[in-house]
């Protein structure tokens, strides 16, 4: 009998470690980081001390996840998910490890996941599409115990969810490519050592015209003029990146020219494959936020009604809490399943989108209810639930809006 929800030892160990880290170095500084609008120094210090980062998944998985393909730092998975099983041909644990660990960190503070040093979302395209030389070169940037970042730039002012209509141009010029255009909403876009950037040789070619590049910080013609002010996730950096005649060495074209000649949709496929791995991870962050909201609401009711179960609302609140808990667990299991499919090398585009669609809706409903449970206390800035409510909204937007997820699901239902 196979269906089994017991966590393998390595997964449990990663979960416990992430939980300890979240309780000790994340949650206590969550409100302060929100005000600081950046990672809290204590958190940064702890990341360095423990060598924790988005590259840690490979190390945590103990080589179970396509170790041969990972860079010399062991940087493989990450808030980037390894899709390791697919490469190594045997099931690894990297995606399940990342899913349980991300929930814990996001429970502490969702921005902690985005502020974990390492390649972040840049990892999957480099790992999935990069040549061995590129994987070595770009992943080795992230030594453990250093607070360095990678980034991923797809969205443009004129194309967000509609990723096949990006306009940023690239043209070959000798042994360089020249990039022109603007990318927005780039997580860690200012402090990143390098960014995976999607551009097109000709918008008329659609998906087939797309190319993915690694653009290193300091490349001439590349600038970061603006860091955005946001409703939530304020401790996470969201930047605009501008490329003006930006000259990128030909060896930074991910996968090399052969990759794009071989099949069509090369760059687009890279972007979409990234989503298959990252959507459950982003979805499970919503689970962590919702769980935090649920626990705060539950504990608050416990305290407020300790001696007053006859007070108005008590039984309604009890029912509401039970409903919240059900919703959270349903979303969690959808994330686990999508991660398990990745680890097992099964195609999971539909299931990844299901986890994201469900969790994105769930976290809105659950955090809104948590505020309702606390009543007038819920909207106070010095209570964490207020921040959770601001943080959560973007989980139905980034990494594909809820509507995009439903498109992905329904297209597969009717394929």
């Amino acid at each position, binding site marked *: *009998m*196979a*269906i*089994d*929800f*017991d*966590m*393998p030892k390595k*997964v449990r160990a990663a979960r416990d470690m992430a939980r300890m880290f979240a309780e000790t170095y994340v949650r206590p500084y969550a409100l302060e980081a929100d005000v600081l609008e950046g990672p809290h120094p204590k958190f940064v210090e702890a990341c360095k001390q423990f060598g924790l980062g988005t590259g840690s998944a490979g190390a945590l998985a103990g080589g179970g996840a396509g170790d041969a393909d990972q860079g010399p730092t062991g940087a493989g998975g990450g808030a980037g998910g390894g899709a390791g099983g697919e490469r190594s041909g045997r*099931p690894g644990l990297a995606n*399940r490890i990342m899913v349980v660990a991300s929930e814990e960190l996001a429970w502490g503070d969702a921005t902690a996941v985005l502020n974990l040093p390492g390649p972040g979302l840049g990892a999957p395209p480099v790992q999935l599409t990069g040549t061995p030389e590129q994987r070595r070169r770009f992943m080795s940037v992230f030594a453990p115990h250093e607070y360095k970042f990678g980034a991923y730039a797809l969205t443009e002012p004129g194309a967000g969810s509609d990723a096949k209509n990006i306009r940023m141009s690239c043209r070959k010029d000798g042994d360089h490519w020249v990039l022109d255009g603007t990318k927005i909403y780039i997580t860690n876009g200012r402090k990143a050592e390098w960014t995976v950037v999607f551009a097109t040789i000709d918008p008329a070619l659609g998906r087939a015209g797309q190319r993915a590049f690694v653009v290193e910080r300091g490349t001439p013609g590349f600038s970061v003029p603006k860091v955005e002010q946001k409703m939530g996730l304020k401790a996470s950096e969201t930047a605009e990146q501008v490329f003006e005649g930006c000259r990128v060495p030909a060896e930074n074209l991910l996968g090399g020219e052969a990759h794009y000649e071989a099949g069509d949709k090369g760059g687009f496929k890279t972007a979409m494959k990234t989503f298959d791995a990252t959507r459950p991870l982003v979805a499970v962050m919503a689970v962590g936020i919702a769980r935090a909201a649920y626990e705060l609401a*539950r504990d608050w*009711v*416990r305290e407020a*009604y300790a001696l007053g179960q006859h007070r108005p609302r008590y039984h309604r609140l*009890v*029912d509401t*809490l*039970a*409903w919240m*808990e*059900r*919703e959270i*667990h*349903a*979303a969690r*299991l*959808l994330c*686990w*399943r999508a991660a*398990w*499919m990745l680890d*097992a090398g099964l195609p999971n585009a539909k*299931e990844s989108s*299901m986890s994201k*669609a*469900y969790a994105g809706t769930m976290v809105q409903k659950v955090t809104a209810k948590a505020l309702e449970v606390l009543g007038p206390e819920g909207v106070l800035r010095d209570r964490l639930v207020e921040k959770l409510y601001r943080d959560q909204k973007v989980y139905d937007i980034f990494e594909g809006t809820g*509507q995009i*997820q*439903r*498109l992905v*699901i*329904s297209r597969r*239902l*009717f394929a």
Partner: protein
Amino acid sequence: MSMTFEVGEDLAAVVDAVRGFARDRLRPALREAEAAGELPEPLLRECFELGLTTLALPEAHGGADLLDARAAALVTEELAWGDLGAAVALPGPRSAGFAALELGTPAQQARLLAPFADAERGWSRRGALAWVEGPFGLDPTAIEATAAREGDAWVVRGTKRYVQAGPAADLTLVLARDPASRAPDPWDRLVLLAVEGRPEGLRAEARNETLGLATATWSTVVFDGVRVPGALRLGTGASGELRRAVRRTVARKRVLDAARLTGCLRAATEYACKYATEREAFGVRLHEHQALAFMMADMATAVDAVRNLTWHAAWLVDRADPDPEPLVDAARRAWRHAAELAVQVTTDAVQVLGGHGYLWDHPVEKWMRDARTLPLVDGLDLDDDDLLAT
């Protein structure tokens, strides 16, 4: 490999076979069975021959020995996918079997359960739980039926409601209060007795007419001085024993009910999706209208969400922890969530078909009624939703 959703080849083959049976035999008979208020005898005999009525009966008593709750959940989902009404109306020991396995001695189990596998009469035998007395759930302090000790027997008086298979039950497990008991915990004042056949004093009232699931029967059962031999008391009377057994039995039933709802929701979703690829409106097929496509995407997601929760609870059943509470929690979670999403998904399925969905020409209106009925109809609601209690 743990933390896995893999079904496994052996079980997948069983599930495929049951799916074929559900598709070829149950689905086509769904309207006829509903109108007749029962499954036709040839179909019942066929189910019995296939072992579908004795799935959770140990091999020692002639059953299919499918005691693994995950396997049972998978098979149950397929049956309910064929027809939720049939999945609920199938004979067999059903939840009474779970309770007997929880509390019965080996001798009691052999006596009570083996008849369900009897080659002659097993095909129509039904087990029943006569536990609930009102529409307020299962509350031990509110049980008024009494079981008084008289010599070597117990004499049961009282009225039980929402008893499935009431008039036709061959084994009825009745929960009653021992008036002589002074135990501080109300659960410990109760006794669980096995009533065989239709003894004197046992009477079932007319079946309840219900919103859905008309293929199955629920009714009020009156115990008017029914004598039960002392040997048919289940359990030793040790403190906490009965409460644990009742909670585990209800949890196991909830897991299967969640699996049944999963099957029904899957059927409704598939039916709506298929219709949406065939029917055209405004020059395109229905699924090309995004408002409907998104609705169906949510329906498909809900089916998977409910199934995952069901599997998780079934896995806890199979772990058989001495403490039943994690299982009770998980089963309640799966069942409640299934009940909630059932309303949404089956209603949306009717909506996708529009006016056609409202008619008897398509099964979706039946599924909408059936799915709403299942989680309510037996009144087996333990008032235990208070997550603050721990």
